[in-house]
């Protein structure tokens, strides 16, 4: 499989259907037929996947969080598992359990639902911190340790977690250290009027989902990963990203700034965003586009006043001039 960098922009028309930008557009188009009026959120979710990051979708119930996860799994042709998190859940329910096998006279490990390429962790904040941390360890290490052995998770491995806003009853909010492992946090929000009309008038989403064909050919996802990594980041852009990071640490309105890991996440997501925009280099616009999703859950406002994450990131963007 040839990589992106081997195709200068003007020479690739013949192979248009294999160009990363066209793959991305086909994905967005297909997803938008089911998730109506949410193109920006879909693009962000795809950028998160291209940058090989885990995704947290935070929103009130019933706006299509789970549907988005399903759609992504189907479109990307990934092996899919869903874990419904509940307050009585144990780590073994996620990673698997060792059972004594009478015939062999030994314990045998039965892999849990986390052994899938795309894991939907539904309502992750309903589980106890103990169960949450079992999943979060898998997300970071991309392997499971059980019975003194390590079991590698499939490749690629994505977690799409959904959670209800923290102020709802019976939830355990994820601590900062665990939020940090999600590349992005996005929310879907209510559909606009036209989209809602189409949703109400149209076919059942579940039927549509069942008929949805995979858009990606085998191997094309690897092409996208490679192409994302090769998107150029120039010194000027690094200056800009560093200025953003520095400002987030110094700004008076924030008690917790962006970590170096957040900086890497920002660059990775911006690369994927630039790829979707059909560019071979990252622009400050790309950084600004992904900043609310990448930084929103990592920044904490100073003082007690709760502030919307979007407001915080918007102020961050407007405070840092381009170099």
């Amino acid at each position, binding site marked *: 499989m040839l990589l992106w960098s081997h195709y200068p922009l003007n020479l690739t028309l013949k192979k248009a259907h294999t160009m990363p930008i066209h793959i991305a557009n086909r994905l967005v188009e297909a997803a938008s037929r089911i998730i109506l009026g949410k193109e920006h959120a879909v693009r962000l979710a795809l950028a998160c996947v291209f940058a090989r990051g885990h995704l947290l979708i935070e929103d009130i119930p019933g706006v299509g969080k789970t549907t988005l996860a399903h759609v992504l799994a189907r479109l990307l042709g990934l092996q899919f598992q869903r874990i419904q998190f509940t307050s009585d859940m144990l780590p073994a329910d996620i990673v698997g359990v060792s059972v004594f096998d009478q015939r062999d006279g030994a314990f045998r490990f039965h892999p849990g639902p986390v052994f899938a390429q795309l894991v939907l962790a539904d309502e992750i904040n309903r589980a106890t911190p103990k169960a949450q941390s079992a999943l979060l360890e898998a997300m970071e290490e991309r392997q499971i340790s059980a019975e003194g052995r390590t079991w590698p998770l499939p490749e690629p491995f994505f977690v799409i977690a959904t959670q209800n806003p923290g102020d709802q009853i019976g939830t355990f909010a994820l601590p900062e250290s665990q939020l940090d492992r999600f590349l992005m946090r996005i929310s879907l929000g209510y559909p606009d009027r036209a989209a809602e009309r189409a949703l109400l008038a149209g076919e059942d989403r579940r039927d549509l989902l069942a008929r949805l064909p995979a858009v990606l050919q085998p191997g094309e996802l690897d092409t996208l990963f490679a192409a994302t990594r090769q998107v150029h980041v*120039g010194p000027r852009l690094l200056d800009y990203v560093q200025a953003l990071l520095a400002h987030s640490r110094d700004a008076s309105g924030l008690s917790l700034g962006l970590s170096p890991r957040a900086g890497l996440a920002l660059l990775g997501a911006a690369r994927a965003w630039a790829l979707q925009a059909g560019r071979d280099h990252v622009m400050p*616009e790309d950084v600004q586009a992904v900043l609310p999703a990448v930084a929103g859950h990592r920044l904490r406002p100073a003082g007690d006043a709760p502030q919307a994450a979007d407001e915080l990131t918007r102020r961050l963007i407007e405070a840092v001039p381009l170099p």
Partner: protein
Amino acid sequence: MTEARLRRDQSGWLLAGAALTLAPHAEHLPLALSAMCALLLLWRGILAHTGRPLPHRLLLLALATGMVAIVQIEFQHFFGKDPGIALLAGLLSLKLLETDSVRDGRAVVLLSFFMQLGQFLYQQNMAVAALALLGAIAAIASLLALQGSAVPAGLRAGAATRLVLQGVPLMLVLFVLFPRVQGPLWGLPADAYSSVTGLSNSMAPGDLARLGESSEIAFRAAFEGDPPPPAERYWRGPVLTRFDGHTWRPGRTHATDAPAYRSQGIAYSYTLTLEPHNQSWLLALDFPGTAPGLAYTDTFQLLAREPVRNRQRLTLVSYPHTPVGLHESANTLRQALELPAGFNPRTRELGARLRTEANGTDDIVARTITHFQDSRLTYTLEPAPLGRDDVDSFLFDTRQGFCEHFSAAFVVTLRAAGVPARVVTGYQGGELNPVDGTLVIRQSDAHAWTEAWLAGRGWIRIDPTAASAPLRIQNGLAAALPDSARLPLLARGDMAWLRDLRNRLDALDNRWNQWVLGYNPARQKALLAALGFAEPDWQVLTALMGAGSAIVMGLLTIWALRRRSSADAIDRSWARFCQRLTAVGCERAAWEGPLDFADRLACERPDLADAARAIAADYARLRYGPADADPALGRRFHQSIKNFRPR
């Protein structure tokens, strides 16, 4: 509060700075102290490398005592330049061994700077200046390292070099305009001039031969037009009349403001740059015309008013064919005939015989020359030892000598024959540097010749060395000596590339002497006069210096600010584009990316949409894209901004 320990890169830079600073001092420090400093630096380097703790205070105290003892043993006192510098060198090495905090590090840097300055107390040549500059760069890099975080050594050195380069314009202003004082800036202690080599005002066998081994430069002469032929390049130094049987000394002379002869014949004008020799005589080509501020002795020597302790430039005109001493005083002639009793009986006998055989004074001189030629005397830097009667044993036994033997023997012979004669010392010859055309005269060109007085013709120069070794006069010392002779490496004739290199270095060194070390009040005045300041006093100079420094600082500041705000042409063009849009009411927010800005503009001003989008796309590609952008893209970008005139 305890301060943070030094990082490894910080102590590394401090060590490098100290080593670069101390290395040139090794030349004049006592050997034991140099070795001690080197060992201490090495020790500190090992400690820094392994991360082990520094030695205990008591051990350092013991080492310091030892160091002071070395200085005491070597110099017997602690006053003056040499013991002072030696103490500081030891202290710098010791200080490093207790330096483990940023504050101490700064003290080490300060001391390093002082020691770099200290090198100039010994020598002021270009090599020392270059070494001091290197040391300064290392010291500044140390300061940067103490201040900032760890970066690769190459980057650190680069940053320090840039800082030093930024200081160069200010340095030039201060150098050119700082009010000059004659002589050194600080009063040097008495030992400042102790180690000057050169002619002395007496001559005993072996004196000049010792100088013959030194390739140090005595003076340079830059002629207007062609220099005189080698056989006429006699640079007159002390004239020695009195002889005590072993040593020649000058007779009683007196000096006047004008020469005692009337100049005539061919004239050579030249500029003499004399290296300091701590004596008051000047080495002019025979026989200089009148020049202001100088004194002329009745032995035709040119004198300065005080000893030459700094490099001096003189502009002179010489007339080699001037007859001198036509009416010499009886007293002088009587002195020029005196011979000590009880010395050199065989030579006196020879003189008496020549006198009886000869037919008049001229014939005596001619016969003496012939006798010297027939005696098969050998010219050598290492003559065999002579007996009590120097001249006798040279002329009749060993028959080996250097120019002082030849001239002494010749004068004794003439005096014994009743002809007034004396020894003249000075320099003969010199080497023309093809690079800058100056004649370079080294200590190895030191020479002694003779003068005989003939009635009606005055003092006539006779060079008895030429009788035995004519090549010495024509081609210099190296040509006259046998091939096996030991010669300083640089005076040897067989290595063409080495000579060429030496010539180039000499020319460079001469420039340095003329324009840096020789930049004295007179030169400063001349330079300022050329700039339109006729009689600058120190107030004018200070004002000029202040104004010059302010201008330089202002220019540097503007340069630094401009560099910050607009790094290159692409940014300048983009800034112009944004300015033009601001003028029509579409301002780009400082945080707004070019593509977003163009999109917003397309909504607000659809008439500008296409042009703005194209420009923004080009800018995005040039500014943020991979570096291998098509050069045509840059041209198109600049062109479209030039044509972009929104209304």
